């Protein structure tokens, strides 16, 4: 476990924090940062350490995490012209050599491993300007290079984008084998997949609480679709909605006190707010049409939802008291699964186009529609990362469905999970500390 002690050493001239201009990584014209990550110089390795190549391993892990973040293009080290001055001060680096191979940024560092701890110094340079962007020292107990690499990558991302990224997050999803499904979760880097429920039933709509401690979902475990909240700390589960007919789980309020629900108990599908502490219900909609999939805005003031009141399923928004209903989507005749960007402003959803479901985003006023996926699969259930820079979704061809991640502009996709059943309904966790 990494206990990061980070020491800032602002050595560079002209590193005025206030003057920082971040690159707009969400722009459709954004080009991946070309970055050169040198193998870390190994200054000391204790005798028991197996890998003598910990410097190479650390560099590889940093590159892996940078790639995952979706904004970096780590250059192949075979193209490096100069890799002998890892310990030299910044003025000794021949930036022209790095610029020549196309690098915008350069990472250099060293690593020292004893049996008890790992110490690494890492520097990030702007190749074009010849500036040192940061110089940090990481001291961690043990020899976990992955955790160290994750921290280094997170700092690089923060320096360049002003955002810590999504490295310390998990993604929940539903895995279905034959007719039995359960909710699983996996780390952002695709590691440590594990089951969160053991219902072996129909199970849909996993929703993290804002603090990441609870997971709400809908399960048919007892025969009918009912809403449960599971405490992920102690594994206890309680039913919070089991009315006649449909009980479907929506998003949590940003303060974690309330849960949005779809219930059919009053005759047809309507949206409700459930106060979790006392299970009190407040009805929000009153329309003879399907109202479903409510999603809270990050500022807590609005709720996006799906309704077919206009003749086809479309995305709408309303105030949290049910007033001020506004239609958001007009393109196409099947738009569902709204998810509000944590940074506000935009809503991701899935829409039917050319007989396939694709992921779109649109701003909350209904303008600036952007199609993000274009392939031959059915791409569904978008869920934003906490940074708002990436989107997880399920991608289905016939019965085979996998979980993918892409940038919020649709670029740089990767597969997060694809085996062990049909994987659907990804839901991104908040950041864990």
């Amino acid at each position, binding site marked *: 476990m990494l206990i990061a002690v980070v020491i800032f050493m602002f050595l560079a001239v002209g590193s005025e924090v206030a003057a920082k201009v971040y690159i707009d990584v969400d722009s459709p014209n954004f080009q991946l940062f070309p970055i050169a990550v040198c193998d870390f110089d190994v200054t000391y390795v204790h005798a028991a350490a197996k890998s003598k190549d910990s410097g190479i391993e650390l560099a590889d892990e940093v590159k892996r995490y940078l790639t995952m973040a979706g904004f970096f293009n780590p250059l192949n080290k075979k193209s490096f012209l100069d890799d002998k001055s890892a310990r030299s001060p910044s003025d000794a680096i021949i930036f022209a050599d790095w610029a020549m191979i196309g690098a915008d940024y350069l990472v250099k560092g060293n690593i020292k491993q004893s049996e008890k701890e790992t110490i690494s110094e890492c520097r990030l340079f702007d190749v074009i300007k010849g500036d040192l962007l940061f110089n940090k020292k990481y001291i961690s107990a043990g020899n976990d290079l992955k955790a160290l690499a994750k921290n280094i990558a997170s700092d690089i991302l923060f320096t360049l984008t002003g955002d810590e990224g999504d490295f310390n997050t998990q993604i929940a999803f539903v895995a279905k084998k034959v*007719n039995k499904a359960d909710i699983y979760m996996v780390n952002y880097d695709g590691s440590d997949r594990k089951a969160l429920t053991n219902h072996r039933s*129909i199970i*849909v*709509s996993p929703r993290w609480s804002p603090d990441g401690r609870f997971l709400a979902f*809908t399960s*048919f475990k007892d025969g*009918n*679709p009912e809403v449960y909240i599971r405490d992920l700390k102690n594994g206890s589960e309680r039913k919070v909605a089991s009315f*006649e*007919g*449909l009980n*479907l789980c929506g998003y949590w309020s940003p303060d974690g006190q309330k849960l949005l629900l*779809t219930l*059919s108990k009053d*005759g*047809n*599908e309507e949206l409700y707010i459930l106060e979790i502490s006392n299970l009190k219900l407040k009805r929000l909609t009153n329309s003879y049409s*399907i*109202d*479903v*999939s409510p999603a809270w805005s990050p500022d807590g003031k609005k709720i996006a939802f*799906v309704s*077919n009141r206009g003749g*086809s*399923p479309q995305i709408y928004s309303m105030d949290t008291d049910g007033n001020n209903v506004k239609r958001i989507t007009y393109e196409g005749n*099947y738009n*569902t*699964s709204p998810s509000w960007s944590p940074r506000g402003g935009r809503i991701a959803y*899935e829409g*039917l186009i050319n007989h396939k*479901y694709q992921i779109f985003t649109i701003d909350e006023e209904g303008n600036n529609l952007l199609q993000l996926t274009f392939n031959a699969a*059915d791409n*569904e*259930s978008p869920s934003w990362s906490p940074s708002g820079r990436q989107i997880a979704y399920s991608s289905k061809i*016939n*019965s085979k469905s996998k979980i993918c991640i892409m940038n919020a502009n649709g670029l740089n996709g990767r597969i997060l999970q694809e085996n062990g059943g049909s994987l*659907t*309904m990804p839901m991104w966790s908040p950041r864990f500390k």
Partner: protein
Amino acid sequence: MKKNLTWIGFFIVLAFSLSMFTGCAGKKAVVKEGAVQDQQITSDQAAKDAAAAKDAAAAREAADRLAREQAEKEAADRLAREKAQKEQAAKVEAAATAKATAEEAVKDIYFDFDASSIRADAREVLKANADYLLKNSAASIVVEGHCDERGTAEYNMALGQRRAQEAKKYLVNLGVKGSAIKTISFGKERPIDPGHDEEAWAKNRRDHFVVKTK
């Protein structure tokens, strides 16, 4: 004395044989009893002994009657038991038949893509379903709404619920008791045809009726 013994022996045999008969036929025993009395009257010499024997016979007869009554009761019980068993078997059989017929008679209805309105062909089916349910006084009906695999799991959950509800409404309008009808949506989670073409989808957009008879 020897004669007396013979008489007693005669009566014992007679009584024993009587008891044999009384078990299954009371009437016959009564006739034989009469014959015994005749013999007693015609036999003057043994009148006294006969009287004593008669007492013994009467005692035996009482015992016989008791045995007879018990046997009759047992027979009646057995009959009742058999009857109950038969009735039970018939009930089970009838229920099985009723279930099979209910499943055959109460047919699925189908929907258009992203629609929950009852189609013209479904109206006919629902009418026939309602007729059957009313005639057979079904105890409970569960309407299951299903969708095809296209589209959102959540939206399809709502759509399936709507499909079930629309059929319930239709059945209630035709006179079926609303309180006996429950609805449940399985969304797109339980397709009947696992295919990925319109033929499969058309089969999967359905309401299925699960009927329990009384």
